[in-house]
């Protein structure tokens, strides 16, 4: 989706630039005509330039909308399976907004509830060492 959106944005920019350039050329030519001539007074931008510019604008708008992606998550713990939700924006009501956290096993207040500053580092390192030893044994 993102790739498609980028390609479309580039394409529409090219369209708009080209039509701008054509329109510029046209008006330069127009100015070289005498100001009271018939074709000067009744002048109008050629249809193909108009269509090109309008097509450029519409493509750009669509590309902007294509740049939205459906929300995707990986669960924080457990097997890594991509979860795709069927909407583009986050719901704002608190009881719904936290559903995403529940789904991926996140605790939005974790900075408080996991008491990260009171962690005993030595205990953690012991645990790791033990685990590493066990792993080594298994491999042997």
């Amino acid at each position, binding site marked *: 989706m993102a790739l498609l959106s980028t390609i479309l944005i580039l394409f529409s920019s090219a369209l708009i630039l080209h039509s701008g350039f054509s329109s510029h050329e046209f008006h330069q030519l127009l100015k070289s005509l005498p100001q009271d001539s018939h074709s000067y007074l009744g002048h109008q931008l050629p249809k193909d330039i108009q269509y090109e510019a309008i097509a450029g604008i519409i493509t750009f708008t669509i590309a902007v909308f294509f740049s939205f992606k459906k929300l995707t998550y990986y669960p924080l713990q457990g097997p890594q399976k991509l979860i795709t939700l069927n909407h583009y924006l986050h719901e704002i009501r608190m009881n719904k907004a936290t559903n995403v956290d529940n789904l991926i096993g996140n605790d939005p*207040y974790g*900075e408080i509830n996991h008491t990260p500053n009171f962690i005993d580092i030595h205990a953690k390192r012991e645990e790791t060492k033990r685990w590493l030893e066990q792993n080594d044994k298994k491999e042997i």
Partner: protein
Amino acid sequence: MDAIRGRYISICTSKVYTQFSPEELMELNDGCKRYMQLKDPSLGQAQYFSLMEMLFYLAVYLCKDVEAQVLYNTFRDRLGEDSPRLYGMKSTLLQINESDSAAVEFIEKLIKERLEVDTDSISYLLLQKRLIAIQSKNHDKEWVVRQLLNLIEKFPIDPEIWWFAAQNYFELGQFERAVYCLEEVIQLTPFNYVASARLAEVLYYKSMRVDKSVAKTKATLQNALNNALRSVELSENYLKGWSLVALTSSKLDGKNKILQLAKSKLQIIANGSNAQNKVTAELILKSI
């Protein structure tokens, strides 16, 4: 890419990595490093630094001392030494490279000479917390609780201390006090549905273990149910909240409607959530 970034950022901001098992830590460390090498353009600078900080602590947990030192040096060169996070990292480094007493000395010196008269709102508090964490190994829980209360007197609006105090009281079996501390947490972070559920849990244990008279048990259970309901009101699919609702309402009379609702909600979670939640929800449904 968005999903991967989201996962690491969530792990980092919720500090859930402090609860990981060594195996998960290993996986996280490798994955996060691989991700950082991709140089994701949508990763903001503040987020980048938080991820780096997480990598530092991961290295510490995984006994990769050299790596931790290198990360700390990078931080020091980019940001200077004088910021709360850097103080915290430095004390951790002292702990692993030298000894606990060196870290204690560093923190006490810093607090005495500098922070008592000139602190920002984080540094002093953070270092005091670290100090308690380092020293708690040599003392019993009563001592820890006393230290925490002293700190609370100075910083009454830090929910993390309150939570840790609640944790300690709970382990000491003083449920009444644990409840008080958890209520403080809720008052300071009103939408903390995890704290509500935890409060309900503590109240539930209290009703089972401490309360003697029937009337008192009932009142405590009702209180627990209320808090559990509050947590699910704030978070629609919160597994722990709904389990506690089901558990408490099954012990009280005349709460059939709520019990039925909780059961149907648990069923929904069992059908449509992630793998871990599914298993837990099914277990709870069976046990009730």
